[in-house]
């Protein structure tokens, strides 16, 4: 019996590869195992190799695995492209239809199973995926009935006979494989775990659910990979809360429409990836100078331009922090797990209203689309804070021709916020420099007052922000401090015990607040480490540059990967060893 294994299904895009992985992993999640899935896909709908790699474990983990135990193949290309990941004694289960061949030099065993033929006998070749799920999960010791609830959930709307046929396909796949392989493969059986209700979701699900729980009621957005799931979830759920999603003509409209709705008092967000973020830059400045709350989600992908639109990268840091002309207060927060993506999204709306400024939630493709097991989210932790804004407040009457001081020069820089429709609160809002009433003013004194007011708003943020740096400090003084942000957290966590095993004292700091930068927190960690390595999916080491600028360390080394794929634990381990 084993504690974990890695399973991959591959084929042509449009062949149901994603749903094959989905059904396999949903069933295992319901059995109580921890899952982590990563999809390799291309920017096209039909054709081209795609695969879904899923790690199954009896204990929590948040990273893709270095190697592979089972490969399910719907074409020869899948075998040729992926067999090198297979461990010694790994298994290839392939559709007999394409007459699979074992590549030279692989020690894996190949089982040719008539996926398509069995499915055709049951009525439709569409069910070949279910045959494959059945055949491959037999290896793990999973029983046909473990799939019942998942199959019912997915196919019940198509009728009971479809449910039964799909279950039959799973059973036939299992039976055929058992007959073929005999009982020689029990090594892959997973240790049983306690069945427990855990969620199985992608980061974008958590962001969307967080937005809903955090009171967001309006989302204008333009579709883009890897952000679209957020708008697709919210359009299904918002009507029940009176809200909606508008698919806008472009990201400029999305961002400015969200500004309009926030100005009028509704928590609104938009979500995009690099190209959309670039288009929003001017509007982000408008949110800054007009002190209008705004929440933007940036799910990073490979850039520049269209770059690698379906691949992992973390190269928008500088654009998010420094993008937009002029100088504004802005918050950039970076959740590093799916759970954090949920809680941080709620908090983003609170901070946007409390500080009346744009807040960017940064994710990356691996975090946004990686599907994983998540402990149930805690309702009690949901909190809504609106800062200096009270819709029901009764305000004193204004004198004739005097506007409400929406931009009053408050000590903390944060003025009372009022919205259209409120009585005795009329004021002007403009992206032109303005006075306390919002009326345009070019006076140098006023300019200084308003700029200073805006820019001091965030002075207490790094102290107030909950866990600006995730710290795993196992040692007072470390040989090595590893620093990262977003989805690399699970990978780094996985590497730490391997390095510790070699006698290396390792600490881990994961930056969760990119701007304003939590320099004191990080400086303390850096000071207590002999060496520091910053791990990031980009070519120029943007996080490392930021740390150098904010903290000023000479010790920093960087580990960069920008080929479109997430770091494997083994790569990080190897590089850390080489650095020491």
């Amino acid at each position, binding site marked *: 019996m084993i504690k974990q294994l890695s399973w991959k299904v591959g084929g042509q895009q449009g062949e149901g590869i994603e749903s094959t992985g989905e059904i396999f992993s949903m069933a295992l999640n319901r059995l109580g195992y921890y899952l982590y899935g990563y999809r390799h896909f291309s920017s096209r709908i039909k054709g081209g190799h795609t695969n879904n790699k899923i790690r199954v474990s009896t204990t929590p983990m948040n990273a893709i695995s270095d190697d592979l135990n089972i490969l399910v193949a719907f074409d020869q290309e899948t075998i040729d492209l992926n067999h090198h990941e297979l461990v010694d004694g790994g298994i290839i289960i392939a559709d007999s239809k394409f007459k699979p061949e074992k590549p030279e030099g692989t020690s894996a065993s190949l089982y040719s199973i008539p996926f398509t033929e069995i499915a055709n006998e049951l009525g439709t070749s569409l069910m070949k995926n279910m045959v494959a799920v059945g055949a491959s999960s037999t290896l793990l010791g999973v029983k046909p009935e473990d799939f019942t609830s998942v199959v019912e959930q997915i196919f019940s709307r198509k009728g009971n006979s479809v449910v039964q046929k799909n279950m039959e396909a799973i059973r036939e796949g299992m039976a055929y494989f058992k007959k073929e392989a005999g009982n020689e493969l029990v090594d892959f059986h997973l240790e049983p775990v306690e069945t427990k209700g855990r969620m*199985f979701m992608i980061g974008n699900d958590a962001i969307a659910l967080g937005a809903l729980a955090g009171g967001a009621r309006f989302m204008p957005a333009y579709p883009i990979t890897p952000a679209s799931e957020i708008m697709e979830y919210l359009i299904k759920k918002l009507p029940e809360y009176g809200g909606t999603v508008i698919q806008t003509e472009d990201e400029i409209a999305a961002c400015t429409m969200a500004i309009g709705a926030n100005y009028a008092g509704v928590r609104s967000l938009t979500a995009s990836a690099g190209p959309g973020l670039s288009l929003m830059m001017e509007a982000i400045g408008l949110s800054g100078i007009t002190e209008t709350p705004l929440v933007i989600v940036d799910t990073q992908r490979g850039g520049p331009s269209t770059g690698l639109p379906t691949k992992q990268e973390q190269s928008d840091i500088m654009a998010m922090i420094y993008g937009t002309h002029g100088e504004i207060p802005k918050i950039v927060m970076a959740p590093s797990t799916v759970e954090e993506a949920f809680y941080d999204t709620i908090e983003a709306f609170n901070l946007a209203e409390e500080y009346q400024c744009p807040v960017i939630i940064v994710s990356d493709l691996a975090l946004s689309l990686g599907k994983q097991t998540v402990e149930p989210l805690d309702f009690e932790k949901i909190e809504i804070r609106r800062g200096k804004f009270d819709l029901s407040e009764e305000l004193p009457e204004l004198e004739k021709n005097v506007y409400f001081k929406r931009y009053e020069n408050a000590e903390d820089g944060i003025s009372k916020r009022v919205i259209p429709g409120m009585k005795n609160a009329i004021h002007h809002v403009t992206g032109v420099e303005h006075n306390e009433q919002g009326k345009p003013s070019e006076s140098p004194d006023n300019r200084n007052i308003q700029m200073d007011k805006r820019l001091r708003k965030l002075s207490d943020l790094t102290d107030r922000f909950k866990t600006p740096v995730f710290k795993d400090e196992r040692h007072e003084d470390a040989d090595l401090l590893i620093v990262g942000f977003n989805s690399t957290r699970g990978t780094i966590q996985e590497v730490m015990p391997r390095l510790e095993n070699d006698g290396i004292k390792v600490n881990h700091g994961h930056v969760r607040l990119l701007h304003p930068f939590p320099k004191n927190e990080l400086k303390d960690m850096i000071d207590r480490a002999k060496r520091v390595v910053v791990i990031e999916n980009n070519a120029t080491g943007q996080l490392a540059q930021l740390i150098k600028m904010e903290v000023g360390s000479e010790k920093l080394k960087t580990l960069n990967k920008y080929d479109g794929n997430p770091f494997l634990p083994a790569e990080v381990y190897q590089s850390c060893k080489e650095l020491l």
Partner: protein
Amino acid sequence: MATFKDFRNNVKPNWCPGCGDFSVQAAIQRAAASAGLTPEKMAVVSGIGCSGRISGYINSYGFHGIHGRSLPIAQGVKMANRELTVIASGGDGDGFAIGMGHTIHAIRRNIDVTYIVMDNQIYGLTKGQTSPRSDMGFKTKSTPGGSIESALNVMEMALSAGGTFVAQSFSSDLKELTSIIEQGIEHKGFSLINVFSPCVTFNKVNTYDWFKENITKLSSIEGYDPTDRAMAMNTLMKHNGLVTGLIYQNKEKPSYEQLVEGFKDEGLVKQPLEMKKDKFDQLVSEFM
């Protein structure tokens, strides 16, 4: 009841003496009073350019945004609080050049916003360059040899895009302009009102006198029926777009807000932000 004086503030417009935009400002104030609005329940969202300053010259909630983006901001305001009357405004450069993508989609989306374009066929605030509304051959600082691009016929475009309220007026004709704006405010859906608003400083061709000579009032055309889209299109083509009055109105098509599933009559801003525990548990269980 508010009067048009209640929509005035004491901010002195920075427009040139004689600018057509003064009349548009006055017409909005009169129309708002006539439509029975109060300043607190109105929001004017404007773009960038001379005319974009208008949101600061009317006593109501005003949002002066960025160049070309008055419409998405205005639509966001309306979606957040449909109990407000939302007026978007700006110039022809703002709406038909940099903001054209938003204009055409706002027309087909049909959110209840009244969009007033102050069309002077030139870029005024940047001191005299060509606009999408400039005629062929029009000489400006950016087209010293005369414009070699066609002027956009915005009213025809609005009809093609499925506009439900398409109107045009002239800033000299305060009575007609006020009436058109009031009808636009009362229209349930998106209304596009293009106003010939001469630039006395940079446009020496399309002057007040030029418009007076060239405009045909639809009220003077016998049998003109603003519910007949084909007649509207033919009339625009026949007069090269130089007509004023209500060109076309479709009262049958519901506004976007009326079609949104679950959208309440009360403003979205008044809906609770909190989620009940049983709802949350249900949402969580969907991921199990």
